[in-house]
């Protein structure tokens, strides 16, 4: 594990349904990130397939051992790579998945748990839900992955932080919405505030890797960023265009923050579990 280093965010514009072209770009950008000194590069949600795949799901779904996936995983030599695609399981269920590839191997897979199915989103129609948030060992220590909407549920980063993660990676396909008078999209402002709170509450590095490009008029805004554990933005990408973002990471900053503001230390898992049990046993909570 490295304490200090550099990570990259590959803010790419995927072509809808064209895995070969997207995989080519991933491999090219992995090399570019490594050449620029990064030890980890994070790609957006569904960067290999495009976001609104709808009935293309059946065509673009891949297993972990399919050739295109193996090729991208194989490119993770000298640099770790996080990338995302539609993963088909042995049972032929289709997941929005992110792979953490390291030394040419799959080190971890996260299947998106929270599938937005409301308003402009329709993921629950096509995809199966993942069922766990688990941290794992990466280049910069304990790491966790949250795919886009996963991060809009406060319990997701909470679980990963309790599982030891000090680096949260958030591959996303977030559309620009609610243009107002501000110099940022409404959805962009929300992401910045949300993840800044997480960085501070959990004393963790947070990486927001958002794609760019249009799909039938829906505009994915980019605006990727990296947050240090004190909530400072250490790198910010432009909007509406492809960009390779670089940020320094120093895990010792996590140590200092978690000593200075030991919120994680003071968490009470037993209390949370007991209260969850009580709520479930009583009125069943909001989902009764």
């Amino acid at each position, binding site marked *: 594990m490295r304490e200090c280093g550099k990570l990259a965010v590959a803010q790419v514009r995927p072509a809808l*349904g064209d895995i070969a072209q997207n995989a080519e770009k991933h491999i090219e950008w992995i090399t570019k990130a490594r050449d620029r000194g990064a030890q980890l590069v994070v790609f957006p949600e569904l960067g290999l397939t495009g976001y*609104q795949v709808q009935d293309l799901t059946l065509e673009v779904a891949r297993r972990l051992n399919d050739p295109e996936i193996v090729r991208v995983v194989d490119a993770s030599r000298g640099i770790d790579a996080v990338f995302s695609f539609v993963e088909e399981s042995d049972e032929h269920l289709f997941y929005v998945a992110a792979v953490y590839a390291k030394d040419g191997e799959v080190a971890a897979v996260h299947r998106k748990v929270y599938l937005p199915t409301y308003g402009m989103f329709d993921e629950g129609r096509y995809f199966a839900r993942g069922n766990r948030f688990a941290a794992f060992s990466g280049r910069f220590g304990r790491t966790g992955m949250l795919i886009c909407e996963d991060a809009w549920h406060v319990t997701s980063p909470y679980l990963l932080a309790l599982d030891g993660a000090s680096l949260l990676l958030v591959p996303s396909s977030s559309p620009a919405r609610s243009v107002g008078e501000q110099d940022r999209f409404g959805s962009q402002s929300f992401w910045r505030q949300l993840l800044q709170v997480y960085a501070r509450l959990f004393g963790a590095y947070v990486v927001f890797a958002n794609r760019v*490009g*249009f799909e039938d008029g829906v*505009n994915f805004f980019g605006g990727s960023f990296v947050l240090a554990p004190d909530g400072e933005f250490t790198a910010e990408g432009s909007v509406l265009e492809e960009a390779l973002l670089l940020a320094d990471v120093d895990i010792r900053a996590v140590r200092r923050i978690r000593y200075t503001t030991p919120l994680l230390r003071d968490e009470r898992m037993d209390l949370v579990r007991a209260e969850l049990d009580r709520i479930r046993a009583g009125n069943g909570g909001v989902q009764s």
Partner: protein
Amino acid sequence: MKPAIRERLALNTDLTVATLTAFIREETEKAGFQRVVLGLSGGIDSALAAYLAVRALGAERVQAVLMPYKTSSPASLGDARAVVDDLGMPSLVVPVTAQVDAYFEMMDDLIGPSTPLRRGNKMARERMSILFDLSAHLGALVLGTSNKTELLLGYGTQFGDMASALNPIGDLYKCQVRQLAAAVGVPQAILDKAPSADLWQDQTDEKELGFTYDDADEILYQLVDQRLSVSELVELGYDQELVRRLAERIRRNQYKRRTPVIAKVSGRTIGIDFRYLRDWGL
């Protein structure tokens, strides 16, 4: 308009222009086209679309088409020419008088005198058919110029001015079109004049609709974007008759905003459970 609503509808013009120009550029180029073609009426909507397209693609890749009818106001043609001159874009003047008059001469004999509605629709569809002809001739996508207010109210001709390949301004209310048009440099004469379909003399949109665009935008924004109900808006003090009329127009004109519905017979039906984006593979 209440100041709070005006504030909610105000746009950051730089960010909006950046978004809409990226939209025009990317959606055009990834579909394999280098150019767009649009009808310039002399009004604010098509002028804004032209300024956005020229910013996105450069003037030489945006073809303007001016399609006057004999009763069109000369001032409209003059305003459209001012846009062409200001942007330095290629333009064509293709009058629709001969074909529209020939058609109604024949139809009036067959089925009796036409109405202004039918004549207006015919002109709009004639213009659409010219634009799509030029689309094939130039290898250019047709740019739409209907704004959100018109689309919601159904104040346009189905398969006429509502038809296009790409519409950069369809999610902008009329007041937002005005704000953006001023920001990109649309000539003052166009910004200042009363919006008109210019189908007959002294026609204005607001006279024909029976309400102002500002009033409509204020209520439509709350009905559509904020999902308030008619009764909630009436509680807030808006005129019940107007709110109801607008809500009813939205409902009644839904058909204009959709592709034709298809009777389901098979296991997989276009438009129902055959689901792909238009940007499939792009």
